[in-house]
């Protein structure tokens, strides 16, 4: 059973943390490579070609950000950042540098496993190169070929920017997308410091798509980091 499950590379210097992750991940059938510092992690990533990398930001030998950057020089293996709360800004930098998602210590095993599943799903989809022409979650349906958005069967009219915002978020569904990433992809590279645009359009999008905009179901705000489009894909 273990042989066909995905391989996860863990780069984490704390023993207790590694033990917790080892128990949790192995019980789920994942194969695990444990490394204790950045250099070792980079070497293992190159030789073993894991499916997902769990990277702790506070490593003894190098900055987690640096590890991310060096990994991204040659691979698209999904990287999930594990960070302490004081490292908010580092976290955003790592995400902007190409990390796929993050977990803030302390986190529960549910959260961890969900993130890993999402990352694997995305990378397999990318590898397969298949993009479904239609996206559906809950009662929201987006038809990419017809540029049509329907909520509970009713067509929702979106402005071009709103539509682009939504499709970008859907492309990274269940993964966090940083403010910079969104601004770059929706407005273009020159607009990356105008977060207020993002806020206004996100508010509009929520008004149109959410039943209760203050308690959104799809468009989740990750304070200080970005947004996450939440699907019901993981609930099964």
């Amino acid at each position, binding site marked *: 059973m273990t042989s066909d499950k995905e391989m996860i590379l863990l780069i984490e210097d704390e023993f207790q943390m590694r033990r917790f992750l080892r128990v949790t991940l192995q019980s789920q059938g994942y194969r695990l490579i444990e490394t204790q510092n950045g250099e070792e992690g980079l070497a293992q990533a190159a030789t073993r070609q894991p499916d997902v990398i769990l990277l702790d930001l506070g490593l003894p030998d190098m900055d987690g950000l640096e590890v991310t950057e060096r990994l991204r020089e040659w691979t698209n293996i999904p990287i999930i950042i594990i960070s302490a*709360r*004081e490292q*908010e800004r580092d976290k955003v930098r790592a995400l902007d540098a190409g990390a796929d998602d993050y977990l803030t210590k*302390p986190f*529960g095993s549910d959260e961890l496993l969900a993130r890993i599943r999402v990352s694997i799903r995305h990378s397999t989809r990318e590898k397969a190169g298949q993009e479904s022409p239609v996206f559906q979650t809950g009662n929201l349906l987006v038809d990419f070929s017809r*540029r049509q958005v329907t909520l509970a069967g009713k067509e929702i*009219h979106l*402005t*071009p*920017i709103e*539509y*682009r915002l939504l499709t970008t978020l859907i492309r990274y569904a269940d993964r966090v997308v940083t403010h910079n990433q969104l601004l770059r992809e929706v407005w273009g590279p020159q607009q990356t410091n*105008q*977060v*207020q*645009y993002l*806020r*206004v359009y*996100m*508010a509009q999008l*929520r*008004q149109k798509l959410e039943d*209760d*905009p*203050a*308690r*959104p179901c799809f468009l*989740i*705000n*990750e*304070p*200080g980091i970005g947004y996450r489009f939440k699907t019901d894909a993981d609930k099964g």
Partner: protein
Amino acid sequence: MVNLKNDDITPSETKGFPKEKSSAGKLKIFFGAAPGAGKTFAMLKAAKERLEEGVNVVLGNVNSHGQPAVENYLSDFKVFLLRAAFQKERLIEEFDLDSVLALPPDLILLDDLAHINAPGSRHKKRWQDIDELLRAGIDVYTTLDVLHLESQKDLIFQISGKRVYDSVPDTLLERADEIQLVDIPPDDLLKRLEQRKINVSDWTEEEIEKFFRPGVLLALRELALRQAAEKLDDQMRRYRSQQEITTVWPATERLLVCVGPNPRSDRLIRATRRMAAGLRAPWLAVHVEAPALVRPSSQDLLRLEEHMRLAESLGAETVTLHGNRADEAILDFARARNVNRIIIGKPTHPRWKDRIFGSLLDAIVRGSEDIEVYVITGDVPQKEKPPTGARYLLTRPFKEWLFSILSVVGCFALASIVAPYLVSADLVMIFLLGIVLVAGKYGRGPSLLATLLSIGLFDFFFVPPFHTFAVHDPAYIVTFGVMFVVAHVISRLTYRVKDQADAALQRERRTAALYSLSRDLVHERSLPDVARIAKKHISEALSYRTKILFPGPSRHLIPLDPCSDETQLDDVEQRAADWAFQNCKSAGSGTDTHSQAKGLFLPLLAASGPVGVIGLWKDGLFARLSSEQMRLLNSLADQTAQALERVQLAEEAQKALLLAEREQLRNTLLSSVSHDLRTPLAVITGAGTTLLRNESLLDEENRRDLVQTIVEEADHLNRLIRNIMDMMRLEAGGISVTREWQSLEEIVGGVINRMTGQFEDHNLEIDLPSDLPLIPCDGLLIAQVLRNLLENAVKHTPPQTPLVLSGSKGEKEVVISIADQGKGIPAEDVERIFEKFVRGKNTRGGAGLGLAICKGIVAAHGGRIWAENQAEGGAVFSFTLPVEPLTHPIELESEGKNHDQ
């Protein structure tokens, strides 16, 4: 050959003598009567002995004057000479103070104490260099002739006819730790002169001829011996007092010398100085500013300044007294200061003046009672004459003369009209009226003219025989006399009143300047403000450009006020300012140190030491400050220094207070941490070990319960630690608010998303209007506030009660409130609930930090936070965040227009 050396008597004892400062260097002076006595030779010989003892001796500046004996010795110091010469090319001519201070050696040899440094040196005189070397803890050997002593200047001139310009203050001889008298009989000296063994290169032939005569040399030798004896006596006395030998020295003497603008006052000052030195008594130089009939000329004032400065340089305390009568002022002051000898110059004016105006000398002698009065002669004739009558008359403005003539003409016209009805005595009164008017207004000259004119006119037109100047009735002569006397008396009185008014005005100005400075400085709390105000006041009071300088990071003084950056200090000024600060003495233009600098630099001395420097500039030539200005400047500087020190102390106190508060917080946190963290840890440890050890004994339900407990307690612990960390960051001032345009709805959404599990038992209602504007705030921090408030509400209210989170838009702020329907806040806690470590009653856990953190964050955003109880029950926690219009209004795209490809 008499060879009297004071270290022959006390070679070892001298070493035991206390130095002025324990860290200061020792000064040894090789003292002689005249050039050519062999002082340099003696100095080198002594230095060589020290050298052989292993002392680090450096040759500062020793000139062999081509004498082989000295040159031989110089060669003994070859190492040092070479080394010194290597360091500074010009060392032989002009020794380099800075490089010596940088070395520094144990002992330095500097020939010729009275040497005047080349222009461009730090100090004008070598003795100032030596002063600085000694303060730096370097021992100095130097040579000095008695003729260079300041107090001996007059005597030398009397004896030899040589004017000495390069004199040194006597205090230097006094402070010397040792002096060694180098004596040579006059015959031998003359022989040496013949053999050209004496360096007299800068002397004129005439001077040499007049100076190198047995009589002169004998007199000089006597002077030198006497000085040496005095010094020995002084050392003996110090030795005695140190050995606690009961002394028979007389009670403290105090001398007072009366100083005036008269050129012979300097002789008076030197004579007093000699007397004071003999008596070892402190002395005062006093000048009285009395209202005079004639204002002192600017020349007189300058000379007076010089005299006062001379007295000061000779160690006197200088005082300027104000008073109507000089004698009273002097005697009152003398009594107040316990002076027992007054020195005053012999009068040089003719005796009749004393008869008429009274004699100061006479008045002092009569009023002196138990004070001894010494009258000392001055035989330098008064060369400069006061302005002559003609010049005096010409100096008066034309207007005054015109007024004088017109008023007499007016009186004459009036007298002509009323003449038929009045007797001539009444007509005199009319003329007298005019004279009084002129005298009262313009003083002596114009009043004299008016008097003459009046008498002339009166005599010509109203005294029989008319139309001639002849007078028949001798009674009229009396009338004319009376007119003269009246004019004179009134003009004199007028001048006195005017002078007093002027003096009062000046004092008033000084007091006003000081007062307004101190008044303005009282409320200032920051260094730049104090500097700015002091700068303004000093510039105004003295009409000089002013700059206040403070010690910068690189030990250089820098101006604190950025507005005066247009005039940076140049190198010389920088050095002068630094020197003034380090040495606590004024430097720059008008002083003897760094005098080539354009500005004058005055240290700001406070009780704890120098706090800064005042720089003064005048456009164009720097006029030397008068003593009046100097006094004012000193007072202003004192005030400023005190204010600066006060501000510095206050800042330090504030820092200490902050530190203490932080310390207090740390202590409270520690105790709180140890208690609040231990409880959940204990539960976790307990549950964990039970699971580990007794697994077989637990059924499925118990096991779940224990695991649930562990997870909950860990979560609780996490919250606690988060709060403690936040508080630490807030307190350390390390919390930085990263303001971005945030949507409140989004922040609330994010918080609720993260807290989903915690609202299971509560019904949370969210009421946010859809038109809330974007708020410039730190999303993470405001999320923290909301989270703490919501957690608080969940924790403190019974399950199943509703919570309402609402927002409303005000004009300049957004109000966010969280209302619950719990028991509300106890009345006594409403006010202090946001303080640190305040917890509600009957609540478990929490370090009492959550709300304090909220308050800190909201305050950092410029908002307010408060709590209140609702009338219908339950508490409301509200906070505000200021709103501003968007810097760049967002242009929303028009609907339907499709930019996509």
